[in-house]
């Protein structure tokens, strides 16, 4: 397992290098004068020149790249123009909000998609199979920002079941003592049930919107791989040995079928991290997605760059975790590496 970890870490290195190079290039691609962009719209020529020197844009590209690497190594992503705060701090304080939302959405998506896919495969051709097929095709077709808005309209405006789509917690409640930064976990740990329910109510609609969007590839893959595993030779052996149906479906079929599903998790995370930006915009969720969108509107580039880099690094880390999970489930990968 350690060998697997090391070999996977080694494959992540070129990805990280690529990501760093691309984010560096993105700032240099800025049309016109990057310094003017960084200085903001109302800057004087003098201010722009100052910024240029300050950002090192008067140096050659390789020099700039080295400076960028040095900054990165020191954890410096520049400062936000609109708040004047270091981007790293702002992203770090907002990350838990995004992470809590995204993880809850993932748990929901996995919790619905996998049983649905398994049932659809086991009961192939029945109504549950059709339901699965409709849900998967419709799910990927739903623009996540649109579902979010519809939910807000129906559950907040019409039914008034859900709180106003604005932020992580009702203004009358104060956030729990930060331990993990996740409101649900922190409030549960401190035994503050009022805040727990408040936070859950705020989380419900954005998390469900994201879950519906990312559910489709999981359910589809679960159904497909379950079907192919159920038709395989070793399932026939298991049945011919008289093993109980539960053992056949779960211990034998499902554990094999889950392997391709784990591979699809990478794509699901790509979906979720992108959907996160849109859902945060709809629900005024104070995470890094909304932070980036606000920065985009004001042409504040450093936060956008920091955001893209953070998301990419997170995504690489998640893919690494997926690889290791795969190794845990599949001995062929674990022992062959």
């Amino acid at each position, binding site marked *: 397992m350690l060998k697997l970890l090391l070999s996977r870490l080694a494959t992540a290195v070129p990805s990280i290098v690529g990501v760093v190079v691309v984010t560096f290039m993105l700032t240099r691609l800025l049309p016109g004068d990057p310094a003017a962009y960084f200085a903001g719209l109302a800057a004087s020529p003098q201010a722009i020149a100052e910024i240029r020197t300050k950002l090192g844009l008067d140096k050659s590209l390789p020099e700039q790249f080295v400076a960028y690497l040095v900054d990165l190594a020191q954890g410096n992503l520049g400062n936000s123009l609109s708040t004047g705060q270091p981007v790293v701090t702002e992203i770090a304080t907002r990350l838990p909000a995004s992470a809590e939302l995204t993880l809850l959405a993932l748990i929901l998506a996995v919790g619905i998609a996998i049983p649905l896919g398994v049932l659809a495969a086991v009961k192939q051709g029945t109504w549950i199979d059709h339901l699965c097929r409709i849900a998967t095709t419709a799910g990927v077709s739903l623009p996540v920002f649109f579902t979010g808005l519809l939910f807000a309209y129906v559950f907040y405006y019409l039914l008034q079941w859900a709180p106003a789509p604005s932020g992580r917690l009702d203004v009358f409640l104060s956030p729990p003592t930060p331990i993990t930064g996740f409101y649900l976990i922190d409030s549960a740990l401190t035994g503050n049930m009022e805040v727990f329910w408040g936070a859950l109510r705020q989380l419900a609609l954005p998390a469900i919107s994201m879950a519906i969007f990312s559910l489709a590839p999981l359910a589809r893959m679960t159904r497909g791989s379950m079907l192919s595993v159920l038709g395989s030779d070793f399932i026939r052996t298991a049945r*011919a040995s008289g*093993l109980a149906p539960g*053992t056949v479906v779960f211990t034998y079929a499902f554990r094999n079928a889950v392997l391709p599903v784990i591979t699809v998790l990478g794509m699901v995370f790509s979906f979720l991290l992108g959907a996160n930006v849109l859902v945060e915009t709809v629900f005024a969720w104070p995470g890094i997605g909304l932070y980036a969108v606000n920065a985009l509107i004001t042409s504040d580039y450093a936060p956008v760059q920091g955001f893209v880099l953070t998301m990419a690094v997170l995504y690489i880390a998640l893919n690494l975790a997926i690889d290791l999970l795969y190794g845990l489930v599949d001995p062929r990968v674990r022992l062959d590496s």
Partner: protein
Amino acid sequence: MTAVPALAVEDLSVEFRTRSGTVKVLDHVGFSVDKGETVALVGESGSGKSVTAFAVMGILDPAGRVTSGRALFGGADLLALSEHDLAEQRGRELSMIFQNPRTALNPIRKVGQQIADVLVRHGGATRPDAPRAAVEMLKRVRIPDPERRVEAYPFELSGGMCQRIMIAIALACRPALLIADEPTTGLDVTTQAVIMDLIGELAHESGMATIFITHDLALAAEYCDRIVVMHAGHIVEAAPARELFAHPRHPYSAKLLAATPGETVSLAELASIPGGLPDLRRPDLPACRYSDRCERRLDDCARPLPHRVIGERHTVSCWNPL
């Protein structure tokens, strides 16, 4: 005739529904296996040998359907049992081993656990005892270093080893009947012989009845007491192995025999059988499904297939036998 049949299959018909029509895969098939006896089901691929076994085991593909017949086993009709009751019998009273042992084992479960699963399921061992019982089973199928091998995954073992594991799984609960479906396909020749000897010995030890499915007539003759020849979902001839080898009566058996390399036949004499199996989706299937390929065909052959007893335990379904 004091032999008691362990399994008696009577009048078994199976259909497969496909997109291009219904395929009559088995048509009124009947044969029996006595306790301690080894019977071979022989025929080309597509003749219905495996389907017969799957139908008896109740593990037919969902597209397949038994349309008539009985399979009497230990006083009960296997085909009439509920899925639940049948699952109780499978693995305990009747077992099956398959071709391609490497794919027939769960790739991500330790082989010891796979043996233990069957033992625990059928009360052959309790969970805590199961690992030791699994090691015992590996010893019975003569796997060297069994304590280490129970911890192995199938991909770490050779094809021959995997087939021994399959045998260990099948025989874990000492069944009364074993169906071996081409158990040596895909193994090299020396391993083939070892596996066949192993099955034979274990069957002999426990007085188990064995159905051996193969397309290799020579192998069948070497290891089996009786041979049942199948063609396109019909049983065309059934006879003691030696008698069939000496005097095949059905034209198809004779051709099959001529196509088998053996001591008495030189390679030059090896004949291939002309034509292929008929399309079983045809609505106008002839009564004798071999008649289109048969050189001894008569006008009589259009009449319903006869079931002629022509010797002790020797039957043939032909109007014009040799």
